C-alpha cells in the first residue's frame, strides 16, 4: 500500500468522523425560546395517560389532554373540564357528567361521552396494565374487571355513555371526591382512532391526538418537549402561553443553573443544601404538600412471611420511645432545611374538612423511661438494628441525623442500610428491616388516601401491624355518605394508628418551586399541581431571579 493511498485513507476516516459529528448535531439547532420554559425533572415515562406514572408525566399530560374535570390551579378543587356540569344521586352511588358541546380533539373531531367510556374502561382493562387502575376501583365492576385473567374476562365496569354528551358512572360505595379524582391525569380521554391507527407507539410527536390546551410539537428524548397552544381547544382564549418548552435535565444543580441563568422560568425542588441562600427570595414559592415523611417500625420482628421473630420492635413501648426521642422540629428545620414543618399527625395538615388526630410532643425523659421499662435501661442490651432508607442524598442526611439522635439520647446503635428505590421497596414489602425511612404522598384530597394504607395486610402497610378496630373504622368511613361523620370516623382510626406507634410521623413534605416573577397564575397548593393552561407571563417588566443578567462567579447570594 502506497503512502499516498494510506494518507488519503486516514484523511477519509477523519472526514467521515467529522461528517458523523455534523449529522449528529443536525436538527439540534436552537428553536426560538418558548413563551414559557421549565425544568420537568426527568423524562416522562409515557405520554399515554392510562399507563404513565409520575409527576413529570403529569405536567405534560395535563397540557395535552383534558379530563371531565380539571384541578383549580389554586385550590385543587375540581373545575369543569370537558364536562360542563355533573350531578350525583341521593345515595351518592350514581354520577352523571354532561359534556360541553365545543370540546374538540386536536384533529377537529368532537370529544364525546363515548370517548370517555372507551378511555376510562381502557384504564381499568387488564390488557392496558395501568398502574393507576386501582384509583377507579370505586366504580361498580371495576375491580373485578381489572383482576380478571385473560381467560375469563369480566363484564365491563359501569361507565356508560348515555348519549354523545352524557356519561353515567355507577359506584360500589359513595366517593364524595370522585369529581376531584377524575381530574387526575390518568383519567383523560384518548382518541380511539389514533390508538387504532398507530398501536402502542401512538404517543409520538406527529401521531398523538389530544384534546388539551396544548399540542405536542417536538420531543427529544431526555432533552426537551415542545408544546404549542392548540387551535382546537374549547378554552383556547383562556390559554395565555403560545409555546412551552419542558426540559428533561435530571441533575438538580443543572436545573438550578438553568433557572438562575434565565434559560427556564420554573424549576421544582432546588437542592436543599442551597435553601439557606435562596430563602427570602421573591421567586421562591414554598408550601405544604399532601405528603408525610415518617418512620416505619417492623412490628413483626422479621420477614412477614416467616413466623414472628423475637425483636425489641414488637414491644410498643420501644417504638414509642424511639419516636418520642426524635426532636421533629429540629429534624425538619435544621436537617431538612427546606421549609419543612414538623408533623404531629399521620394525615398531613391542610386537607379541606379534616382535622387530623395528634401525637404527644417529643419527650426524651419519657422515651428513656419507656426504654428502661421495656428492659433496656440506657440502651443496654438493645441489639444493633437496621435502619433502611432508599439511596438519595437528602434522605441520607436525614437518616444520619435520626441515628445520631438515637445514639445520643437513648444510647442505641443502628446500622444505616441504603438501597436503590426498587430494592428498598421490596425489602419493606417483605419485612426485611427493623426501622425504615418512609414517605407517602396522597393521590387525592381525602384522608382515605393515607389511612387506607394501614388496614391489616394491606399492600402498603409494610409494618406487620394490624388492628380489627382500625380496619372496621376505615371500612365504615369509606361507605359513609355523610361528610362530617365520615371525617370523624377517619379521625378515630388515625388516633388508633398513632397510639400503636407502628409509624412515627416526622414532618410534612413541602413543595418548593422557583418561579420567575414574570410568571403569573402560579399558586402553591397541596398537590403541587400547576397546569400550564392557567399560567401566563408578563414581558420582562420586572426582571429578577437572574432572568436577565446572570450573577457573577462569587455569587449573588441574596
Amino acid at each position, binding site marked *: 500500500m502506497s503512502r499516498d493511498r494510506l494518507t488519503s485513507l486516514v484523511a477519509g476516516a477523519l472526514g467521515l468522523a467529522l461528517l458523523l459529528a455534523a449529522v449528529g448535531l443536525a436538527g439540534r439547532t436552537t428553536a426560538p425560546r418558548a413563551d414559557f420554559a421549565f425544568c420537568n425533572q426527568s423524562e416522562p415515562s409515557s405520554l399515554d395517560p392510562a399507563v404513565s406514572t409520575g409527576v413529570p408525566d403529569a405536567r405534560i399530560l395535563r397540557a395535552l389532554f383534558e379530563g371531565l374535570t380539571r384541578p383549580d390551579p389554586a385550590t385543587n378543587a375540581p373545575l369543569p373540564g370537558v364536562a360542563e356540569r355533573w350531578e350525583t344521586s341521593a345515595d351518592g352511588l350514581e354520577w352523571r357528567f354532561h359534556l360541553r358541546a365545543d370540546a374538540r380533539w386536536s384533529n377537529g373531531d368532537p370529544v364525546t361521552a363515548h370517548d370517555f367510556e372507551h378511555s376510562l374502561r381502557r384504564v381499568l382493562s387488564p390488557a392496558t396494565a395501568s398502574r393507576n387502575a386501582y384509583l377507579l376501583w370505586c366504580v361498580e365492576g371495576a375491580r373485578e374487571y381489572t383482576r380478571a385473567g385473560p381467560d375469563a374476562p369480566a363484564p365491563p365496569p359501569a361507565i356508560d355513555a348515555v348519549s354523545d354528551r352524557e356519561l353515567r358512572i355507577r359506584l360500589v360505595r359513595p366517593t364524595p371526591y370522585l369529581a376531584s379524582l377524575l381530574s387526575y391525569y390518568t383519567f383523560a380521554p384518548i382518541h380511539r382512532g389514533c390508538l387504532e391507527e398507530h398501536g402502542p407507539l401512538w404517543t409520538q410527536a406527529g401521531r398523538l391526538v389530544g384534546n388539551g390546551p396544548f399540542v405536542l410539537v417536538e420531543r427529544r428524548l431526555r432533552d426537551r418537549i415542545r408544546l404549542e397552544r392548540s387551535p382546537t381547544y374549547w378554552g383556547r382564549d383562556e390559554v395565555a402561553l403560545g409555546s412551552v418548552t419542558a426540559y428533561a435535565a435530571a*441533575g438538580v*444543580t443543572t436545573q*438550578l*443553573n438553568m433557572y*438562575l*441563568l434565565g434559560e427556564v422560568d420554573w424549576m421544582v425542588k432546588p*437542592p436543599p*443544601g*442551597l435553601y*439557606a*441562600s*435562596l430563602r427570602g427570595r421573591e421567586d421562591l414559592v414554598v408550601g405544604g404538600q399532601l405528603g408525610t415523611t415518617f418512620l416505619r417500625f417492623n412490628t413483626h420482628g422479621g420477614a412477614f412471611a416467616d413466623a414472628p421473630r423475637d425483636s425489641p420492635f414488637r414491644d410498643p413501648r420501644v417504638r414509642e420511645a424511639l419516636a418520642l426521642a426524635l426532636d421533629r422540629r429540629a429534624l425538619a428545620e*435544621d436537617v431538612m*432545611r427546606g421549609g419543612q414543618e414538623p408533623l404531629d399527625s399521620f394525615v398531613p395538615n391542610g386537607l379541606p374538612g379534616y382535622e387530623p388526630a395528634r401525637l404527644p410532643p417529643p419527650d426524651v425523659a419519657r422515651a428513656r423511661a419507656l426504654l428502661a421499662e421495656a428492659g433496656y435501661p440506657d440502651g443496654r442490651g438493645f441489639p444493633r438494628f437496621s435502619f*433502611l432508607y432508599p*439511596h438519595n*442524598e437528602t434522605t*441520607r*442526611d436525614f437518616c*444520619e441525623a435520626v441515628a445520631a439522635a438515637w445514639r*445520643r439520647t437513648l444510647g442505641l446503635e443502628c446500622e*444505616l*442500610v*441504603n*438501597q*436503590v428505590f426498587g*430494592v428498598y421497596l*421490596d*425489602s419493606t414489602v417483605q419485612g*426485611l*428491616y427493623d426501622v425504615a425511612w418512609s414517605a407517602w404522598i396522597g393521590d387525592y384530597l381525602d384522608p382515605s388516601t393515607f389511612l387506607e394504607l394501614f388496614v391489616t395486610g394491606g399492600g402498603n402497610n409494610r409494618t406487620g401491624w394490624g388492628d380489627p378496630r382500625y380496619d372496621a373504622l376505615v371500612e365504615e368511613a369509606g361507605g359513609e355518605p355523610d361528610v362530617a361523620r365520615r371525617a370523624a370516623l377517619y379521625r378515630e382510626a388515625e388516633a388508633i394508628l398513632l397510639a400503636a406507634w407502628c409509624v412515627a410521623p416526622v414532618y410534612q413534605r413541602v413543595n418548593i418551586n422557583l418561579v420567575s416573577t414574570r410568571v403569573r397564575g402560579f399558586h402553591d397548593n397541596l398537590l403541587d399541581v400547576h397546569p400550564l393552561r392557567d399560567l401566563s407571563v408578563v414581558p420582562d417588566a420586572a426582571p429578577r431571579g*437572574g432572568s436577565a443578567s*446572570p*450573577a457573577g*462567579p*462569587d*455569587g*449573588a*447570594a441574596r
Partner: protein
Amino acid sequence: MSAVPLRARPGVWRRLVRRPGTRPALVVLAIVVALAAVAPALPLPLPSEMDARVASAGPGGAWRVADPVSLGQLADDHPWAAALRAQVFGDAELAGVLGTDDLGRDLLARVLWGGRVSLLVGLLATLVSAVVGVGWGLVAGYVGGRLDQLMMRVVDVAYSIPFLFVVILLIAVLRDEELAGRMRALGLDRLSVLYLVIGGISWLTMARIVRGQVLALREAPFVSAARALGAGGPRIVRAHVLPNLWGVVVVYLTLTVPRVMLFEAFLSFLGLGVEPPGVSWGILASEGLESLTVLGVSWWLVVFPGLALALTLGTLNLLGDALRDALDPRLVR
C-alpha cells in the same frame, strides 16, 4: 513474543532514585499515605460532622474546642488513635483549613478520611487483580498448548466486554438486602465487595504480561536445565519462574493501583461505589461538581479533592514508569 525477562538486577534502587522526579514523587506519596493513615489521630473534626453555622465556608482554618460527642464517637471507632490524639492535642482541633461543604463538614478531614478509603480500595483491588492475573497468566503460560490458547482466548473476549456495565449490574444485584445479608455473614461488607469486583475485572493485562514472561522463561536455558535435571513442574515454578516474575509484576502493580483508584472514583461518582456516610475521593469530587451553581461557586470543593487525586495518582504513575525503566535497562537510554 520475545519479551526479555525483567529480572531484579542489582542497582535497581540506585537507578530508580537517580531518575529525576522520582525522589519528590516518593516524598509526596509517602506524605499522602502517612496523612491518610494517621487521619483519625489528627486534630480535625470528624468527616461526617455537620455544622450549619459554617456551611460553605472558604479555606481558612482556626483552632477550636472539639465537639465531645464526636470525640466519643472517635473513641468508639478508633480507640487507639483517639487516645493518641487526646495525648498530643487534648480536645483542640483545627477546623476549616480547606473550607467546608454545604453541610458545614470540614473538607480537609473529608479529603484525608476519603484518602483512607480510596487508597485502601486501590490497594486491595490491586492485590485481587494481582492474584487472579498472575495465577491466570502463570497457568496459561506454563501449561501451554490448548489450555493456553483457550485461556488467552477468554482474555481476548473479556477485553471486549463493557465491564463498566457489568459492574453496575453486579452492584445493583448485590444491593439486595437478602444477598447483602448473606455476604455479610461471609464477612464481606460493601467495601470488600467493591474491591473484589474492581480487582476481579482489572486482571486481564496482568494475565497477558505474566503469560508472556512465563512463556519466555519456560524456554530459558536455566529452566531447561532444571527440567533436564529432573525437577518437577511445581518446583520449577516455585524455584525458577516465580522469582523471575516479580519485577514485571511489581511494575505492573504500581501502574494498576492508579487505574483501579480511578475506577473506584468513577463508580463512587455515579453513586455506585463507596456509600455515604463513607467518604472517598470520588464522592468528594462528585459533591464538588454539585456545588457549582450561579448562586456561589465553592471552588475549593472541586479543586482540593481533584488535587488529592491528581497528586496521588500522578506520583503513582510516575513511580510506575520509573520502576519499569529501572528494572528494564533496555529502555534506559
